[in-house]
């Protein structure tokens, strides 16, 4: 009997954004999966060739609505490298705080979506309830819930006073208590385990060979966290990458659960050691020249910015390689041999961010 082809997406209940997979099925088992993207391709990389490099920081932030701040951080740090300037320590620490806040909210969003994907509605609501408290902190410190708008070339645009720092610390402690309860449910509930343990296996060798990034590779037992490069304040903080060995959907869930706790800790460390001083250095009159490749860790994994400039106002080439793009090849590998009913969960565990993908 010939195989059946089932289209998955571009519109699917577990997918907030359009990505399409052609699933070739033998009975209920996936033989091959063919992804295709580009439904919402926006050509932002070309836009960088027409816009002033300082203005592009705002466009870079709008590449994605979840990792918004980290995109602008990566863009600004890449440009700073080309200009030969360095953001002051206070700016580096506050950038780290905001990057970790957005990591927490992104992972909580993912936990909610994952709970929704295996039909656990009340867990989904609870995750997003905790996420709302984090988003409130983001709004109080930056003024925006999704688009932070605080990163600029040379530093940051907004400072935090001592009062706010104290208040944020106190509130984060309260949120962490609530989060610990949520994490216990994820770890102990049998429904979560039944849908994820042993599903979508990816061995460490395969993950490395296929170029997986972020929680996907760390759940397969390989220590690889781009934050270890020590950009922003990460070089001065005490932390170790989180690694799980199993390589299944449950391990990927566990990596994200533990990363949230780690982010709470990193923010506390940053706020404790927050240096005083300037928050920006002037980039006035400078023009980017040369080329740079800048890598940093997003909630979904390593993102690469390649930028090239020749002393003009605009960049000659701006390229963003997003983590989801790197995780497509491992996803195709994981889907081979899985059950059709598990496909939504497996697709979700790479945390696909299609709008990141479609720069």
């Amino acid at each position, binding site marked *: 009997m010939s195989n059946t082809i089932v289209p998955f997406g571009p519109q699917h209940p577990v997918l907030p954004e359009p990505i399409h997979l052609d699933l070739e099925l033998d009975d209920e088992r996936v033989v091959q999966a*063919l992804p*295709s*993207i*580009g*439904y919402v*391709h926006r*050509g932002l*990389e*070309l836009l960088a*060739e*027409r816009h002033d490099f300082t203005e592009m920081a705002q466009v870079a932030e709008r590449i994605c609505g979840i990792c918004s701040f980290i995109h602008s951080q990566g863009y600004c*740090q890449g440009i*700073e*490298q080309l200009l030969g300037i*360095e953001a002051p320590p206070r700016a580096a620490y506050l950038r780290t705080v905001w990057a970790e806040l957005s990591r927490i909210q992104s992972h909580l969003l993912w936990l909610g979506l994952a709970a929704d994907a295996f039909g656990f509605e009340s867990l989904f609501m609870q995750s997003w309830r905790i996420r709302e408290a984090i988003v409130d902190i983001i709004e109080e410190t930056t003024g925006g819930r999704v688009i932070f708008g605080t990163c600029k070339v040379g530093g940051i645009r907004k400072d935090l006073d001592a009062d706010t720092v104290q208040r944020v610390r106190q509130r984060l402690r309260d949120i962490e208590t609530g989060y610990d309860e949520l994490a216990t449910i994820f770890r102990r509930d049998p429904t979560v385990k039944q849908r994820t343990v042993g599903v979508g296996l990816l061995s460490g060798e395969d993950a*490395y*060979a*296929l*170029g997986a990034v972020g929680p996907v590779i760390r759940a397969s037992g390989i220590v*690889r966290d*781009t934050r*270890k*490069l*020590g*950009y922003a304040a990460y070089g001065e903080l005490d932390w170790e990458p989180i690694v799980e060995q199993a390589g299944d959907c449950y391990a990927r869930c566990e990596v994200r659960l533990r990363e949230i706790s780690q982010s709470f800790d990193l923010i506390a460390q940053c706020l404790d050691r927050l240096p005083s001083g300037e928050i920006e250095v002037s980039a006035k009159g400078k023009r980017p020249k040369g*080329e*740079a*490749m*800048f*890598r940093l860790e997003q909630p979904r994994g*390593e993102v*690469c910015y*390649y930028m*090239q400039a020749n002393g003009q106002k*605009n960049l*000659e*080439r701006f*390229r963003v*390689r997003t983590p989801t*793009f*790197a995780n*497509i*090849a*491992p996803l195709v*590998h994981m889907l081979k041999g899985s059950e059709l009913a598990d496909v939504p969960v497996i697709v979700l565990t790479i945390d696909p961010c299609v709008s990141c993908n479609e720069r």
Partner: protein
Amino acid sequence: MSLGEPFEDLELDQWVTTAVRHQSEGFRLVQMTGTARADHFEIMVSYDKDYRCVNYRTRIPRDHPELPSLSAIFPAAFTYENELKDLFGVVVPGLTLDYGGNFLRTKTKIAFSGEVVVKKGAATATKAGQEV
């Protein structure tokens, strides 16, 4: 902060041999990308091992844009090579999984291969239109 990562130029015939060497040394493919120039395309590839990244560049002519595929060496290269194909119109012989130009379903086909011109006139025209 500068990572001091090197960018090296390669001849096109070293493209595959460099990849084989890096694969056997345990490097990982980080990314591949292209840049459109006036008379050629610049293709860049990055490998990484233990957080250290090395970048290689090669040139392929515009009238004969052909790039040997790395997808047999690094399985993950198929997404990048299909992207190069869809954005720049690069022909990639030996691609393990060839979408035939349908990987990125963009409205404009081979969108990044054209000449990049700043349309100053168009921008002012819209502005004037708004003021009316």
